[in-house]
């Protein structure tokens, strides 16, 4: 059974029949309304709108070639933001947008110490505290 599970994973990966998420291009070429999808891409810069009073979140997911409009009710995870990767679960609507039920932020493998940015912000803080003029 274990061997069978391993073989299935390898087989599924090779044939691309079991992809974890589809890209905006793949969804755009043949969207099926009502079908559950997992959609992955980059949150397009300038596309993010967050309405705290109604908890409505809208943004566009892009893979550089195609872009898909996404709507969601609820707050996104902390690392979610423009210019960053995200994977959303939900379905395509007949109205022509993707209704997300769950938003996940994709994280990069880079880990940075705050050296320069921190120094800059401390300087900025000191400047504003001392009432410096711009």
């Amino acid at each position: 059974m274990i061997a069978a599970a391993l073989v299935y994973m390898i087989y599924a990966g090779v044939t691309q029949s079991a992809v974890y998420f589809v890209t905006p291009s793949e969804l755009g070429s043949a969207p099926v309304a009502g079908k559950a999808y997992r959609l992955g891409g980059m949150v397009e810069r300038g596309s993010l709108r967050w309405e705290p009073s109604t908890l409505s979140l809208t943004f566009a997911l892009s893979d550089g070639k195609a872009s898909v409009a996404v709507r969601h009710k609820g707050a996104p995870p902390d690392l979610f933001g423009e210019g960053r990767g995200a994977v959303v679960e939900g379905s395509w609507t007949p109205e022509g947008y993707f209704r997300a039920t769950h938003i996940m932020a994709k994280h990069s493998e880079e880990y940075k110490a705050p050296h320069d940015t921190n120094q800059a912000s401390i300087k900025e803080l000191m400047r504003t505290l001392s009432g410096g003029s711009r």
Partner: protein
Amino acid sequence: MVKTLGWLTAAALAAGLVMAFGVAPREVTQGNVQRIMYVHVPLILASYVAFVVLAVASLVYLVRRDPAADGVAHASGEVGVMFVGLGIATGSIWGKPTWGTWWTWDARLTSVAILFVMYLGYLLLRGTIDDPERAARYCAVLGIVAALDIPLVHFSVYWWRTLHQPPSLMKPGGFTGSSSILWPLLVNLLAFILLYVYFVARRARLLRAQAEAIA
């Protein structure tokens, strides 16, 4: 010898703890949650070590029928399962605030879940066979087959689309990040590998004494 190793391990773990909280900076994008990495990554990498040792010891057992090799495999299985289990738990705790989910069935998480269940099965198999020679033989075969999942876990993030990010340490080109994050990670990695070796040394000795008492 084992006692010295124990003290060395304790010192390395203490140094790792101090570095994870005292030396390592607050990571820019993730904040303090990133510190989970100093336990999560060493746990998983040390479990890879445990399962590779298990496979090699299993092969040695099949060739030479040496009970000592079987003892090392058995002990490595126990420590490896514990490490992978804790690695999954810490990953999940990290995933909730960063990804926004405790768990998702992407290739990395699925393949590591298979790894965990396979070695749990390995320990179960040992417990269900009463003839020690036969148990050792069957487990040796399973121990070699199960190791095939390790490259699957490691390369899953390259072979499939996943939510989990690619490796930041174990890859060509080296670590992508600040050195003030790399060093605490390496010290903790050393500490957890020492902890694995220490546990196996103690456990294998106990298993041998047990086998002699029964015989």
